[in-house]
């Protein structure tokens, strides 16, 4: 390889590649594809599978919290009812870093509410507490707005915040809460004192209140400390999706689960994989259980639908047929085959795309080091630059 200047600071892979010498280009291709992409694709495949798994468990946790307050003996005795998921989602995009809770339960009779955040992984508790603190700020700033939505006046003093985790993650969370509440450094740390911990026991499908925490409502404390869940329930609450659910899972559940299944059954439809936007939108609306009025729901879902379509096209799961139709891009007709193929395609394409992005960064660093070695001194470098 003849002497050539290494990439400048701030120069991207594509920018450098565009003017690089042919030999350098070949070297870059080799490093990117043979060294980095192969290993990174495997890593990213594992990452996305884990991410989907965590998302599904998070969904399970939200349902577990919601269903025990959806017309149950617990809701009857405590007065708390599950209201809706993702309170204040409509305001979350108005300011950067706005965070929201996963769901709200409320007690109309004493005008109180509990905002619940669910976490299905044992990752960074510190970061989660920061996010909960930000979500609390959004709640406090919008008390009047929330009161109108709920249909009763909601005061700051009548709000509690819950952090719900799988029981095997609870000890780590508790340690973090204790550490932050005893040594408060930032505004975020104050929430650590207020947070109430719920543990989810999947074997029994029950929620348990951490023994040293208490709710303002003594009946709620008593019933949740004894554990409450599946054995006490006659019904379940169906939540097919929520807005912050992983986009691939919404595509899987709504486009395949409802739209494609519908087409597959309809003998008059020959192009089974062509989905109309109306059909997609109808199922999104029918399965939406947000605290929004019909107009707000439609507005937010229109945006969501366009985002999901764009996401699907980017991952090569769909193609746009015309303004009103998309087509699922995968072989096979039977629902099982379509589900498996679409999932496989998503995992491959997503990992490939992420691996490509990362491989470019790593390759650029490698080539920078390699080319820099040609100029042992600063003088050599300046000479080459001036020539």
């Amino acid at each position, binding site marked *: 390889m003849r002497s050539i200047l290494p990439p400048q600071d701030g120069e991207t892979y594509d920018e450098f590649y565009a003017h690089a010498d042919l030999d350098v280009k070949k070297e870059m291709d080799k490093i990117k594809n043979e060294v980095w992409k192969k290993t990174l694709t495997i890593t990213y495949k594992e990452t996305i599978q884990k991410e989907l798994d965590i998302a*599904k468990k998070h969904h399970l946790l939200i349902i577990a919290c919601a269903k025990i307050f959806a*017309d149950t003996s617990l809701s009857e005795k405590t007065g708390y009812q599950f209201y809706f998921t993702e309170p204040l989602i409509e305001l979350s995009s108005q300011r950067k870093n706005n965070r929201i809770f996963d769901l709200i339960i409320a007690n109309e009779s004493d005008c109180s509410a509990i905002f619940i955040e669910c976490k299905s992984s044992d990752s960074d508790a510190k970061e989660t507490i920061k996010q909960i603190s930000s979500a609390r700020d959004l709640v406090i700033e919008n008390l009047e707005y929330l009161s109108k939505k709920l*249909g009763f006046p909601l005061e700051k003093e009548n709000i509690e915040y819950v952090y719900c985790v799988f029981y095997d993650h609870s000890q780590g969370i508790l340690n973090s809460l204790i550490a932050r509440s005893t040594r408060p450094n930032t505004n975020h740390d104050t929430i650590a004192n207020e947070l109430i911990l719920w543990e989810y026991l999947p074997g029994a*499908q029950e929620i348990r209140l951490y023994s040293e925490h208490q709710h303002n409502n003594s009946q709620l404390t008593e019933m949740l400390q004894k554990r409450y869940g599946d054995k006490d329930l006659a019904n379940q609450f169906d939540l097919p999706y929520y807005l912050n659910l992983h986009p691939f899972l919404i595509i899987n559940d709504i486009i395949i689960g409802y739209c494609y299944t519908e087409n*597959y059954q309809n003998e008059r439809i020959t192009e089974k994989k062509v989905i109309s936007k109306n059909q997609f939108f109808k199922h999104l609306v029918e399965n939406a259980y947000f605290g929004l009025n019909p107009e707000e729901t439609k507005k937010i879902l229109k945006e969501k639908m366009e985002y999901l379509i764009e996401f699907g096209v980017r991952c090569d799961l769909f193609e746009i047929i015309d303004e009103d139709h998309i087509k699922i891009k995968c072989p096979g007709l039977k629902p*099982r085959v379509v589900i498996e193929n679409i999932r496989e395609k998503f995992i491959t394409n997503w990992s490939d795309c992420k691996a490509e992005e990362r491989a470019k960064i790593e390759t650029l660093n490698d080539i920078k080091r390699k080319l820099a070695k040609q100029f042992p001194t600063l003088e050599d470098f300046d000479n080459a630059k001036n020539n």
Partner: protein
Amino acid sequence: MDFITIASGSKFNTLLSFINHLDYERINFRLPNVINIIPTISTFDTIGQFVESLEEAEFDIENEYGKLLLISKKSQNEKISYYAFFNEKNNSPIFLTDAKKTEDIPNTLFNYINKTHGISNLWIPPKIMKQIKDDLALEYPEMLITKFSGVRSINSEIHSKLRPYCERNLQYHGNDGKETLKEMEIWYGVLPKILEIRLPTGVAFKIDDKGIFSHRSGRFEDSFKIINNVVDLMIDLRDYITKSDYEIRHFGKTNQFSRAIQKPWSIRMSYGLDADDIPKFCDLVQGSDWNFTILKDVLLTGSILYNARMIDDNSGALFDITTTGKKIDVFPVIQRDLSSSMRFYQFVLSHIDNTAQVG
């Protein structure tokens, strides 16, 4: 020519009057050698709803004789005819045909049953099949079983003296079928799936786990006595399953909020599933025999919790299942589908536990 002669203008408003007509035709040798009788259970409230569902499935209603209908549908360019009697006693239709069980019945009648939410064939659980056999053997000690097939599932609670851990499937031909089956029950813990029976009254029939009753000889009155007993047993199952529900409830000061509530029905097993059984469960339930698809699932190991949303590939119906081992809760999604539910229960009976019970 239709396989049962019925004078125009005749009306059959009770099942008994139709059975009497069948026996009259039989005595006069005007019936085919084998008539397949397919009793069903349904959630139709009226004969009108039943007719509507037939029309939706593109059956031709060729004639009406009171509660008895002559219907037909094409299968591979051949017209397949059925007489369908709507039994108002339990709101469940009974179909009679001389068509073949291998292709014609699946292509026409079972296609309709599988795609229609409110009707199901009688998936007869092995334990009920054994009960049918035992009841008949008690009533007719001279009864012969000339053919049977039997099964033993891996988690069966039925005692087996020899190698109880083995899954079993067998077919037997021979006039000593009754004794052999008894021995197979005792030694190998096998339960019957298909039975071919000859009664001293002259009645000969075959009954299989899909609830197809092939009448070969003897009085229809005797055959229908057996069929009605089986239907009565399955009606209890229908009544239990149809208590499950999916409902949108509104709440809030001005009913501004809504939520979807799923009321389940449950299957209880003697041994149940553990996490290692789940991959096999997924594979089998999605096989071509059962035709379900898992849309999405979560398995939490340790203390097992398996949760899945299923699609019935036959009807497009969705339902959720949740199990923590010994019990499977089945939750309807949007609409309850009797046919899917019955087929799923039969799947559990066939592959997980022959003795699984609902409730």
